């Protein structure tokens, strides 16, 4: 179906279901219950899930297939964000030109950085990309925001002002990012019993783009091009002596994954028309590496799961403060309650990074293949149990003598 084999098509269906039903899936707890703070079905957060999903899917095309670990992918995210806001400033609030320009500019950026960085491999490649990303950050943060030539608006971040040209802006169109009049902030609310589900136009735009990008990545993984990329990761020497030029292959993968990052950046701006330099910082580059490894580098669905998990932690765990903790443990005697809160407090709220770090360590040590490997192990365990059951029956039915 759609040029995919059955297994891949099923995977696509799963991702489609996850993305389209997210407003339900992420809101499992009634809004008046104590667990409601674990709900993640808000437009802002759901948008981040799918946008960073796109970012990680793209990153995985480079890292998962070729093994080239880029530490500067946030640069393309940032370039995409700025491009999109510039389109808002110049043309108007329709998101389509903005998103398209972010893909194009980040592609050009990735091509230029790729040509230089891909002269080296391994750790040197990582350091080169990191250097380029930090340079881009510095450019965006200060160099390109002087009064004579203000491309990025420095510390404040690039945003749309009332005196911007916006030449295609019509009076009837909303004064916010929109797709042919449909505001990205438009949200339908559905009340069922104690549950409230939110359906946001911006989220669904991002989700549909994410599904399309996921589909594209499956096609790339299963193509001869994808096979060549895996061959580069596996044995670059044999690649050269088989008459294949590895450089353009890696460069193409680098540009494609840069364009994915640019698309994600453009969508971030399309959801919230503000682009800041901090999007290019090295922590943002590191985050996408974590997402991909956590989910399972080189697997199709891994990056989507990884980005979801990290964004969930970042937004939900960080909201648990000491009052919430005291509420949870209020049933305990006072001394014990304080002890529990003191023990858990460093791992929640502002300390959510600590939990993430511990989790990352555990996964890398025990599940080097990420969450996907975890899933496969569970599946295998069930299979083995089933087959050992049948073995038992077989031995029972044939008596020893």
């Amino acid at each position, binding site marked *: 179906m759609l040029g995919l084999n059955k297994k891949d098509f099923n995977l696509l269906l799963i991702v489609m279901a996850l993305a389209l039903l997210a407003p339900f899936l992420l809101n499992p707890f009634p809004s008046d219950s104590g667990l409601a703070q674990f709900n993640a079905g808000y437009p802002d957060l759901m948008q981040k899930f799918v946008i960073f999903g796109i970012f990680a899917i793209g990153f995985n095309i480079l890292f998962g297939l070729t093994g080239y670990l880029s530490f500067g992918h946030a640069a393309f995210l940032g370039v995409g964000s700025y491009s999109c806001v510039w389109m808002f400033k110049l043309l108007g609030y329709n998101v389509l030109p903005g998103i398209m320009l972010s893909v194009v500019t980040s592609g050009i950026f990735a091509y230029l950085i790729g040509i230089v960085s891909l002269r080296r491999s391994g750790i040197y490649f990582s350091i080169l990309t990191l250097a380029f990303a930090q340079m881009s950050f510095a450019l965006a943060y200060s160099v390109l925001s002087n009064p004579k030539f203000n491309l990025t608006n420095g510390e404040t971040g690039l945003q749309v002002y009332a005196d911007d040209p916006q030449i295609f802006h019509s009076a009837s169109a909303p004064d916010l990012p929109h797709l042919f009049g449909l505001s990205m902030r438009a949200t339908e609310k559905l009340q069922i019993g104690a549950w409230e589900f939110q359906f946001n136009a911006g989220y669904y735009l991002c989700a549909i783009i994410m599904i399309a990008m996921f589909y594209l990545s499956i096609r790339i993984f*299963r193509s*001869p091009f994808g096979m*060549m990329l895996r*061959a580069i990761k596996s*044995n670059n*020497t*044999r690649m050269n002596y088989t*008459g*294949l030029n590895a450089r353009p292959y890696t460069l193409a993968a680098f540009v494609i994954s840069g364009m994915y990052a640019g698309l994600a950046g453009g969508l971030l701006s399309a959801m919230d028309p503000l682009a800041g330099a901090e999007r290019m910082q090295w922590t943002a580059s590191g985050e996408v590496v974590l997402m991909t490894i956590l989910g399972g580098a080189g697997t199709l669905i891994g990056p989507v799961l990884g980005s979801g998990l990290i964004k969930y932690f970042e937004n939900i765990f960080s909201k648990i403060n000491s009052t919430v903790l005291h509420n949870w443990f209020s049933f305990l005697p006072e001394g014990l309650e304080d002890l529990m809160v003191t023990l858990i407090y460093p791992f929640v709220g502002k300390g959510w990074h600590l939990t993430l770090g511990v989790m990352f360590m555990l996964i890398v040590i025990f599940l080097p293949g990420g969450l996907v490997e975890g899933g496969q192990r569970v599946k295998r365990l069930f299979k083995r149990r089933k087959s050992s059951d049948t073995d038992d029956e077989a031995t029972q039915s044939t008596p020893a003598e």
Partner: protein
Amino acid sequence: MGILEVKNVNKRFGGLQALGDVNLSVEENSVHAIIGPNGAGKSTLLNCLIGKLIPDTGSVMFDGQSVLGRKPYEICQMGISRVFQTPEIFGELSVLENMMIPIFAKRDGAFRMHAIESSSNEKTIIEQAEHVLDSLNMADKRHMNSASMSRGDKRRLEIGMCLSQNPRLLLLDEPTAGMARADTNNTIDLLKQISDERDITIAIIEHDMHVVFSLAERITVLAQGTPLVEDTPDNIKGHPKVREAYLGESA
């Protein structure tokens, strides 16, 4: 004129003269062995033939064209395939995929952007790959991960990958080093079969005299970076100079 003509090749590494005035001519469709004691310059010579090293002086011509200054992938596209001392295969890929990649390279050249087509739709490539695997008696292993095969099978696969491109010259660098006797004999039989059935020139660097004398039609003996003698195996066997080079003057 041989298919491979090496003329006056010199290569120095600092104070060490690795190759001094090497002249070598490999006849088309022959099996030519290059032997010599350790440090004789065999590997340096081979690296000069496949673009890994550039000699200081001299020329290396393949079928009338110079190979000097060309990248390894360009030299491969000219029709020179190389088999390594330790089998170089795509360990993380399946055996069938290993075989498909060189056939893609032969059809599409050094680079082609085919990112949307599905590899499982490339029927002719798969058919060709399976045909080569069949001829190597490896058809039953095609879905195996190639890293998990025995060394002998890896060597077979590597040779098969080279042959799938129909090269005109096959260069082998100690193809049986570190192999068990049975695997060595299998490799010898395979190479014999290849040179009998195909229009292919084989140049082989080897330590193992058993391999050399069961395969080669011509032998060049290299010592201290210069060719000592070039002759047929029968004449090489009893040659006093060769004995001297291998066993020292006292022998």
